[in-house]
């Protein structure tokens, strides 16, 4: 107890204080050394941990951001663009119906585990996925396979879609042929997905045995997908370590890469869950770059000399209307009144990051199928007032749902966007009852079920095909919208049947015009999810699909 004599007590307090300062200063020095000394490690912060290191099991951007550096698919999008180009396949072609796809594969490509890449490897992968059993058939695990290729060899659940995949045959060492039953709008785009990236067949064998179990009451990802070293792709980096405790995935340069080698030796992905957290980490020099920059930060970071390249837009933010939730919305005048009441310009001007665009149809202008001559509904409060009068809905009351605790690439700050729109609608004399819900699952479920009169939602494209946008909403009756309109449905589905890309494009343009004529909801905007890098970084070509390949990155 003696230590509590007043003098020592002071001493202790002092010591603590000094300690804090000391650590402080020392750390400052560390920081300096780092920035001055030549760096061979690039640290990039995302918003969430990857779910697994096997992209085939994933459906989220955070996972693909990591795996994209280590795995490559048959097709890719051009660096920084949305055009489909050869990936592991140098060229590809299909028959007229678009049911038989032939890929001429790249030669002397090696997997990280030394295996050689060839047609057999490709087929091994596709057959592996096609023959998935048990929990692998849950859409929580194999979401993308099911969207692109339908079900499996043996479906175990009646609600699993019927398989569209037929076969994969290795015509010769470097020619793989993939056949599907029916033509699909998801092809060839789907071949570019990370989820369908090619693994080393050896690795596949390794972990084929491992079962993803649903024991207990959750799907357990197989062990291999949780540790570095098991999975092996052909990418410019290979995954060397996943330190979950520190939320950190480390990759190192793959020196036998077939293409241009990575410029920086080590690549590290870390997780910082909050926007300001990531920004502060960058400003504090703890990281070299991060994704999902809050719009508010873009200009500031630029002004402070950080590198903030602008991505092209590849998403769409819209206000959805559920006609079954509120009968008034069945009237076109009402829908139009709402459309004209909202000041999109202002939203984009004050809320979206640099490069944000006002949307006039359910598709960003970067997608093939975007139509220049859709019906427009310009902002005009007076007009919407009169429309409401015409519809006899002067006292229109709507429940407007918005999500909390989430930022999506297409809606940076949902609550703020909501408040602005609410104010607009009220100006037009519409009474708005706000309804906030947690993003998952409350909000998702509510919108799925179409239980809100109005809601705000959006979509980020997986690959460059219009159907990937309009198809998700208007291919048929959907509770979210709660309307049946043959004209629209037919127009939308027309495109998906066609094998030839240019024919499709034309069809999609028609579809867009039909949709905007009917006006099921209000497309608001497309915004580029901002990405930022430290001052001393030459960033990679930023991609509208957020498919950056960091092997292009280098330090100044």
């Amino acid at each position: 107890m003696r230590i509590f004599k007043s003098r020592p007590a002071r001493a202790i307090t002092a010591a603590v204080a000094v300690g804090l300062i000391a650590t402080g200063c020392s750390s400052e020095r560390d920081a300096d050394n780092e920035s001055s000394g030549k760096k061979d490690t690039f640290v990039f912060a995302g918003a969430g941990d990857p779910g697994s290191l096997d992209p085939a099991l994933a459906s989220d951007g955070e996972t693909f951001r990591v795996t994209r550096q280590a795995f490559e698919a048959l097709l890719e999008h051009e660096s920084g663009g949305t055009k489909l180009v050869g990936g592991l396949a140098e060229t590809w072609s299909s028959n007229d119906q678009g049911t038989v796809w032939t890929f001429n594969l790249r030669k002397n490509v090696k997997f990280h585990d030394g295996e050689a890449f060839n047609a057999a490897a490709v087929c091994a992968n596709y057959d592996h996925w096609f023959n998935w059993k048990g929990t692998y058939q849950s859409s929580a695990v194999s979401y993308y396979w099911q969207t692109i290729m339908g079900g499996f060899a043996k479906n175990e659940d009646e609600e699993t879609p019927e398989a569209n995949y037929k076969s994969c045959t290795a015509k010769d060492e470097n020619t793989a042929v993939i056949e599907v039953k029916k033509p699909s709008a998801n092809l060839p785009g789907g071949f570019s997905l990370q989820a369908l990236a090619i693994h080393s067949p050896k690795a596949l064998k390794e972990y084929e045995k491992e079962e993803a179990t649903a024991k207990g009451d959750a799907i357990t990802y197989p062990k291999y997908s949780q540790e570095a070293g098991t999975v092996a792709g052909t990418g410019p980096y290979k995954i060397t370590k996943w330190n979950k405790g520190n939320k950190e995935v480390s990759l190192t340069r793959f020196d036998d890469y077939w293409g241009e080698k990575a410029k920086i030796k080590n690549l590290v992905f870390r997780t910082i869950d909050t926007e300001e957290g990531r920004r502060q980490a960058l400003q504090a020099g703890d990281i070299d770059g991060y994704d999902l920059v809050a719009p508010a930060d873009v200009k500031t970071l630029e002004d402070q000399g950080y590198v903030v390249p602008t991505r092209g837009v590849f998403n769409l933010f819209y206000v959805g209307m559920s006609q079954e939730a509120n009968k008034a919305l069945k009237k076109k005048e009402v829908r139009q009144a709402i459309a004209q009441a909202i000041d999109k310009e202002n939203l984009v001007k004050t809320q979206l990051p640099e490069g944000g665009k006002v949307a006039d149809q359910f598709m960003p202008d970067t997608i093939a199928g975007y139509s220049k001559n859709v019906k427009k509904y310009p902002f005009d409060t007076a007009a919407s007032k009169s429309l409401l009068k015409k519809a006899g809905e002067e006292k229109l009351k709507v429940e407007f749902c918005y999500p909390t605790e989430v930022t999506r690439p297409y809606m940076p700050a949902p609550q703020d966007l909501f408040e602005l729109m609410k104010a607009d609608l009220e100006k037009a004399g519409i009474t708005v009852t706000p309804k906030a819900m947690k993003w998952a699952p409350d909000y998702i479920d509510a919108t799925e079920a179409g239980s809100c009169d109005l809601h705000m939602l959006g979509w980020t494209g997986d690959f460059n095909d219009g159907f990937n946008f309009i198809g998700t909403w208007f291919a048929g009756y959907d509770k979210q919208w709660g309307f049946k309109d043959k004209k629209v449905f037919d127009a939308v589905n027309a495109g998906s049947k066609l094998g030839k890309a240019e024919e499709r494009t034309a069809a999609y343009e028609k579809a867009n015009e039909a949709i905007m004529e009917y006006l099921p909801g209000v497309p608001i905007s497309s915004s580029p999810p901002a990405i930022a890098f430290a001052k001393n970084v030459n960033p990679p070509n930023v991609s509208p699909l957020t498919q950056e390949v960091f092997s292009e990155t280098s330090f100044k």
Partner: protein
Amino acid sequence: MSVATKTDKIQRLAELTAGSETSTGASLWREALGRLKTSKMAIIGAVIIAAFVVVAIVGPFLAPHSPSAQIWRGEVFPNKGEFVGARGENWFGLDHLGRDLFSRMLVGARQTLLVGIVATLIGLVAGFVIGIVSGAAATLGGETGQRVDSVIMRFIDMMLALPSLLLAVSIAAVMGQSLTTVMIAVGVVQVPVFARLLRGAMLVQGGADYVLAAQSLGVRKRRIVLSQILPNSLSPVIVQATLSLATAIIEAAALSYLGLGNPDPAIPEWGVMLAQAQRFFSYAPMMGVYPAVGIIITALGFTLLGEAMREALDPKLKG
């Protein structure tokens, strides 16, 4: 000796004695009040609270602008980190949607106070009931009473074992977002605290001689509890209630920070305002500082008063 001298002797004596009369047997509460009057803490606390209440009541009428109207929306660019600070017409500047911060602060006071009071009431009432039951059972319930009490206490332990914030968040998760949710969530967290306090106090009182006396005189148990034990067990509960007002306001802010706050953003509430402002903390710090300071000062007010009361009611513990 003569009668005359005797009487005026007595009078003389009387007036002299009067001078050095020492007051005896003032009630605990009167004494406490006396001590409160002299305690600086109490005075500061009371003043703060008074001011806060006044603002909460008349604030909305004094607000120079509508708290929800985005009058200056064109002048604020959250996406460029451009904000408008204090200026002539907007004393506290604008928020991220071009609304008058000062007006929002004024109007927000009422919401904040409302949350604090209602939440505390919920906790108080519920905790009170539980407390009385188990307290009474424990003191006068005999064998079975003891058992009842211990069961209730297990339950209370359980609630206490959950970190308060998690408990609140869980409740909010079930009930979905609304002002009521926040109040209930924050209130429930207080329940075990009150229950325990009251029970404890009642146990102490239950052992006191006057209770034994009353029992031996055959006074009915309900009467003993209600008219004897309870009144004497109240003081700690009242103190706790005052302190809870502070914690309630802070917890409410925390819930807002976790995104479970009042869903209608048009109705300003300090906690929500603070939670929203933190995104722009580097650009418009004041946007967060105003509500934060508001919360801190208010909480401080209740804490000061509460602590002062505690000290006043418990002379042993001198602050």
